[in-house]
C-alpha cells in the first residue's frame, strides 16, 4: 500500500512539472476549496441544489448540492448504478428532477427544454455513442452548428440566405475534423466509423455548438489505449480553449491524469469531492468505489 501511494505521488509530481498554464490556473483556483461533498467553488458555471429523482421506489439521484468550477476539468466517478448518467440527463433537460433547482451560468434551467441548453452553451455526449449512421461525417458535424438560418424550412428553399453561413460552418467543421484526425473520413458514412472514431466524432460534433460547458459521458469506453492518450490531450485542449469539462469515467488513471477536481457519487449521493490525490486516499471512496479489497489479487478472497 505504501509503495503504491509513493508511486502515485511521484507520478503526480512529474505531471505537475508539465502542467499547462490553464491547468495551473484551474488547480490554483481550487487549492483553497475544502475537499468535502457539496463544497462551494469560487466561480461555479453549474450549480445543482437538492436535486432528487426517483424511479419507482429507487432513488437514482439525491444530490444536496454540487458546483462545477468554471474553466476546470471535473471528473464524475462512482460505481455502476451510482446515478451519474441520470445526473447528466437531469442537468441537460433530458430528464426532469422530482424536486430541486439547478442553474447554468446563474440562470435557472428548471423550465428549459433539452434542446435549448445547447444554445445556452452547454452540450453533452452520450454513454452509448450516438453517431447519425446514415449521414456522412461532415454532415454530422454541420448538424452540430447552432443558429443556422437554413434550419427554418422557408429559408431552406432560398439557398442564397444560407449558403454563406453554410460555407463558414463547413470550414469550421473541417478544422475540427482535422484536429480530431477524422478528416480522412470526411465524406464517409458515420456508420462506417469504428467505435473509437465515433467517440471522437461525437465529441467534435458537440464542439460545433461552441459550448462553454462540455459534458462527456464515458468518453473513453471502448477506446484503445493509443486513442485514449490522444483523447486525453483533446480534453485538456478544451480547457486550454477556455471550456469547462465535466466527464464521467471509470478509468482511474485517466481521471488522475487529466482532472483538476473529482466528484464521487454512490447510490445517487455525492459522497466525496476533492483533487485527484485527495480522492484516491479518501477511505469513503475506496470503500464505495474501489472496494475495500483494492490492491489485492482477485483470487485472495478465495
Amino acid at each position, binding site marked *: 500500500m505504501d509503495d503504491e501511494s509513493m508511486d502515485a505521488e511521484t507520478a503526480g509530481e512529474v505531471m505537475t512539472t508539465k502542467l499547462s498554464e490553464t491547468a495551473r490556473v484551474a488547480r490554483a483556483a481550487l487549492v483553497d476549496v475544502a475537499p468535502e461533498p457539496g463544497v462551494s467553488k469560487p466561480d461555479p458555471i453549474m450549480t445543482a441544489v437538492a436535486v432528487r429523482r426517483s424511479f419507482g421506489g429507487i432513488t437514482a439521484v439525491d444530490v444536496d448540492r454540487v458546483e462545477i468550477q468554471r474553466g476546470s476539468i471535473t471528473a464524475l466517478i462512482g460505481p455502476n448504478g451510482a446515478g451519474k448518467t441520470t445526473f447528466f440527463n437531469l442537468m441537460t433537460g433530458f430528464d426532469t428532477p422530482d424536486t430541486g433547482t439547478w442553474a447554468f451560468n446563474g440562470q435557472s434551467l428548471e423550465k428549459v427544454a433539452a434542446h435549448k441548453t445547447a444554445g445556452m452553451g452547454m452540450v*453533452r455526449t452520450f454513454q452509448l455513442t450516438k453517431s447519425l*449512421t446514415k449521414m456522412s461525417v461532415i*454532415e454530422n458535424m454541420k448538424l452540430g452548428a447552432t443558429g443556422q438560418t437554413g434550419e*427554418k424550412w422557408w429559408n431552406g428553399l432560398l439557398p442564397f440566405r444560407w449558403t454563406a453561413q453554410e460555407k463558414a460552418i463547413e470550414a469550421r467543421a473541417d478544422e475540427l475534423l482535422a484536429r480530431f484526425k477524422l478528416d480522412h473520413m470526411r465524406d464517409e458514412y458515420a456508420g462506417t466509423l469504428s467505435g473509437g472514431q465515433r467517440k471522437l466524432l461525437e465529441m467534435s460534433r458537440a464542439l460545433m455548438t461552441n459550448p462553454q460547458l462540455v459534458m462527456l459521458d464515458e468518453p473513453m469506453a471502448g477506446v484503445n489505449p493509443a486513442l485514449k492518450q490522444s483523447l486525453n490531450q483533446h480534453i485538456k485542449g478544451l480547457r486550454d480553449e477556455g471550456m469547462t469539462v465535466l466527464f464521467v469515467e471509470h478509468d482511474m488513471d485517466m481521471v488522475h491524469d487529466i482532472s483538476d477536481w473529482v466528484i464521487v457519487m454512490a447510490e445517487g449521493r455525492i459522497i466525496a469531492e476533492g483533487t485527484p490525490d485527495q480522492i484516491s486516499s479518501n477511505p469513503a471512496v475506496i470503500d464505495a468505489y474501489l472496494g475495500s479489497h483494492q490492491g489485492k489479487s482477485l483470487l485472495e478472497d478465495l
Partner: protein
Amino acid sequence: MFANILDLPFDAILTQTLSAFFGVNAMYFAIAAIGLNVQFGYAGLLNFGQAGFMACGAYAVGMTTHYFDISFWWGIPIAVTYAVVFGLIMGIPTLRLRADYLAIVTIALAEVIRLVVRSVTFKKYFNGSDGINGFADTFRRVTPFDDAKRYKLYPFDTSNGTGATVLLLVVFGVIAVLAGRVLLGRFGRERSNRGVMWAVFAGASFLVVLVISSYVEYGGQSFKAIIVGWILAAVFGAFVFMLMRSPWGRVLKGIREDEEAVRSLGKSVYSYKMQALIIGGVIATFSGMMLSLDRGSVQPDNYSRDVTFYVLTALVLGGAAKVSGSIVGPMLFWGILSFTDVFLNSLFKEWGNQIGIFGWKFVSNSSQVGMIVQGMIGLMLVLLMVFRPQGLFGNRKEMALDGR
C-alpha cells in the same frame, strides 16, 4: 398452348400498361408518396394516416363547390387548412412518443375521418357513404381540355398542334435531363467525362421517353387531371428536393437517425417533426384533391387504410428518402399492376376462358384474375424486399449501415 401467347394483343397491352404508368392513379399516388417521403423517408415518422390527409383535400374541394357554393379555388386554402389542423391534431399528442405509437394513432385518426364523413349522423354535411358527387363541371371549366377528345402524348402525332408538339418536346427534354442526372449519379460517379456521360444518358432517356409516348393516350376526361396532377407532382418534387438539400433537411435526417443526439445539439426535435408531418400532409392533401377532381366525386371509402399502405408500398418500391423514388415508385406500382391485369385477362380470353398449364387449371373464372394480380403484387414485394430492400433508387450503402 404456348404458341398462342404470341397471338395476344401486345399493342393493346403495351398501351394500357404504359398509360397506367402516367395515369391518374400513378399521379395521385405520386403526390401522396412525395408527402409521405417527407414524413417517413426523411424524418422517419411512421405515418399510417396518409389517407386521412388525402381525404382532407378531397372533401375540401367537394364541399366547396357543392355545399359552400363558392369558387373552386377556395377549395385549395380550405384543403390546406384542413390538412394543417389534421396534422396538429395528429402530432400534438403523439410526436413526443416513440415511432410505433405515432403509427397507431395516425392509422386510427385517418379511420376516424373516414368513419365520420361516411356516418349517418353527419349525412346532411358529407352525404354518408355515397359521398359528394357531380362536381366534375368545376374542374372542366378551369382546364382547356375537351372531354370528348382523345389525347396522345407522342409529340409528332397528327392530332397534336404545333404548340402541343413543342410543349411535349420541352417536357420530355426536362424529364430526359433529370433522368440523365439520376443515371449519372448511379453509374457515372467515378468517371472523369461526366458531362459527356450526362449527355449520353439524357439522350438515351429522351429516346426511351419518345418511344414510350407513342403508346400513351388518354381520354380528355382524365387527361386534364393527369396534366395538372403531374405538374403538381413536379412542383412538389422540386420543393422537397430543395428542402432536403438545405440545413432543414439535414436536421430531419438527423432526427430519423437519432433524435436524442439531435436534441443534444440544440434542435427542437418536436417542432421539426411537426413541420415534417404537416408539410407532408399538405402535399398529400393535393393528392386527394386531384383524385376527387378527376372523378368529379368523393367517396369516403376511397380514403381507407389500404390507400395508405399502397402508397407506402409504392414509395418503398421506388426507394424511400429519394425524391426520384417517390415519383417513379408509384408509376411502377401502377404500371406493373396494370400490366399483370391486362396480360392475365388477355391470356384468359386467348386460352378459352381459363388459365392453366399441363392440364392444371388455376383460373377458370374471370373474377379470379384480379386475385392473381393481387397475389403477384405481394410476391413482387417479397422479392423486392429480399433482393433490393432499398428500393429502385434507394442507396444500397445506406441500407447496409442498418443495425450497426
